[in-house]
C-alpha cells in the first residue's frame, strides 16, 4: 500500500508500452478483433461512398470485400458466443470462415460482373 510504505509506485504499464516485442507476439485472436474493428469503420466509409457515387465497380468491390470479411469474423463471434463451436477452435474458425468468405465473395463478384 502506497500510503503505508511511502514507496512511490510507477503507474501501470499498458500493452506495448516500452515493449518492442509486443506486436510481433500478438496472436491471431487479437488480430481478428482489431481487423474486424477496422473493417467496421471501412464499411461505414465505403457505404457512404456507395450511396453518393452509385454503381462504381471499384467501390462496390471494396464494399463487398469489407462486408464479407467483417461478416466472416462476426459469424465466428456468434458461433463462439452461443457455444455452437467450442472456443478451442477459435483460430481454425478465423481461417475457415475467412476462406469461406473469400469463396462466397468470388462467386458473388463473378456473377455480378
Amino acid at each position, binding site marked *: *500500500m502506497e500510503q503505508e510504505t511511502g514507496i512511490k*509506485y510507477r503507474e501501470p504499464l499498458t500493452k506495448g508500452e516500452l515493449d518492442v*516485442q509486443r506486436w510481433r507476439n500478438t*496472436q491471431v*485472436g487479437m488480430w481478428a478483433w482489431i481487423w474486424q474493428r477496422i473493417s467496421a469503420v471501412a464499411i461505414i466509409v465505403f457505404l457512404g461512398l456507395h450511396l453518393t457515387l452509385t454503381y462504381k465497380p471499384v467501390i462496390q468491390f471494396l464494399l463487398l470485400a469489407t462486408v464479407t470479411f467483417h461478416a466472416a469474423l462476426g459469424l465466428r463471434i456468434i458461433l463462439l*458466443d452461443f*457455444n455452437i463451436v467450442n472456443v478451442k477452435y477459435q483460430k481454425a474458425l478465423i481461417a475457415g470462415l475467412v476462406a469461406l468468405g473469400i469463396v462466397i465473395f468470388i462467386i458473388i463478384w463473378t456473377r455480378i460482373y
Partner: protein
Amino acid sequence: MSQKRIINIFRYDPTTEEKGHYDRFEVAIADESKTTLLDVLFQIQKTEDSTIAFRYACRVSMCGSCGMVINGHEGLACKTIIGDIKAKEITLRPMNHFPIVKDLVVDMDPFFDKFKQALPYFDNPHTAGAPAIIRPDSKEREDIGLSTECIACGCCVSSCTMMYHHPEYLGPAALNRAFTLLADSRDGLYDQRLIRVMSSCYNCRLEFNCTDVCPKEISPTRAIKYIQRCALKEPFRKIDPRQPAVEVHPVIEEQAAGNPEFSRRRFLKRVTYGLGAATALALGGVLASATIGPSIRRTPKQWLRLGGLEAFAPGQVKTISVHYDVMDGFYKSQKIKPVMVYRGLDSNDLVVYNSRCTHLGCTVHWDDTKHIFLCACHGGAFDLNGDVKAGPPPRPLDKHNFKVADGNLYVEMS
C-alpha cells in the same frame, strides 16, 4: 557448451526514477534446455547486479508469483525454459495494468481487489452438513474442467487490453473464478455472484489474449462466454424457492460516482445516438427519394416521326407502334407504344390518341366496322372525338402533342 544470451530487464527504482528504463545483461548459460528464466534471474542477481528485484516462491509453476512479460508475451519465469526462446535477446518487463513497485515486482492489490468482488469462495448458507457430491463424469464437472487450476498469477489480466479501457472490468482471472463457482450446483451464492459479474462479463472483446498466455492453459475466454450465457438465461431461470433472493448491489454502482469511465460511457452513448441518427437520415433520404423520386422526376420528351402525311388517309384511323428508348437511371429500356392517328375529312384535322384506356390502362383498338375505339378489358368505348361512349372510363382518351414539319408527322413521347 555454454552459450551467451542477452537479457534486457526493465528497471524501476522508486526513489530515483519516474518512468523506468532497460538494463542489458549478458549471461553465459551452461545448458539452455535445463535452465529456466528464473534460474537466469538468480544468476544475474548473484553475479551481475544484486539490486535487481523480482518475485518468486515455489519455482515449479504452482504459486503464480513470477508472472512477467517475456518478449512481449506473459508467462511464468519458472516455467519458461531458455532453450524454448528462439529470439537471441530476451526482454523482461513487469506485467501490464499493475502499479510497479520495483523492477519486475508489481503491486497485486488491484488484482485481488477485483478477485474479491467476484466472491471467489464456495459458500452455501442454505444447506447444512456435507455438500452434495458431483460425479466426475457429469456434464457440470466437465464444463468446469481444469478452470479451477488457476494460480492467480495475473498473466491473463496483464494480457487483456480491456483492463486498460474499462477500469471497472473485473478481468479474466476473477471471471474465471466466478465461472467455476457459477457452474457448481452445490454453491449457494449464484445470484449474488452473477449480479457482480454481470456487467463485467460483457467487457470481453474475444481477443483470446488471456487464453493464449495462461501458464496453466486455462481459457478464461471460455469462462466469460459461460457467464454471458448465464446472464442471457437469467430472466428465464426458475428461482429455487428454498433459496430466498438476497439483495446484493453490484459493486460497480457504488464506485460509479466520480468515475471517469462513466462520462466516457455517456460520451459513447451520445456518439452512438448521433451515428444512429445520421445513418437513419442517410438511409431515409435514399428510400424517400427512391419512393417519391419517380413521380416528381421530369422525364425528357422526345419527338418521333410517325411517317409522311400522305400515309394517313382522310377520314381514317391508323394505329402505329412507336419504338423509342428511355433512360431509367443507368438502364436503357426500349418502349413500344401504339398511338392512333385520326385524320379528319378536312385534311388539316389531325388527332393523335394515346392508346391507353383511361379506365385501367389496357390498350384501346380501333374497330373499323363500328367506327369506335374499343377497350377489350371492360368494354370501354370512345368515339372519334375521344369522348366516352360506353363503359367505365372516367374521361376521354388522352391525346399526344404532335407537329407537322416538311410533310412529316411527329409525335411527342415521354
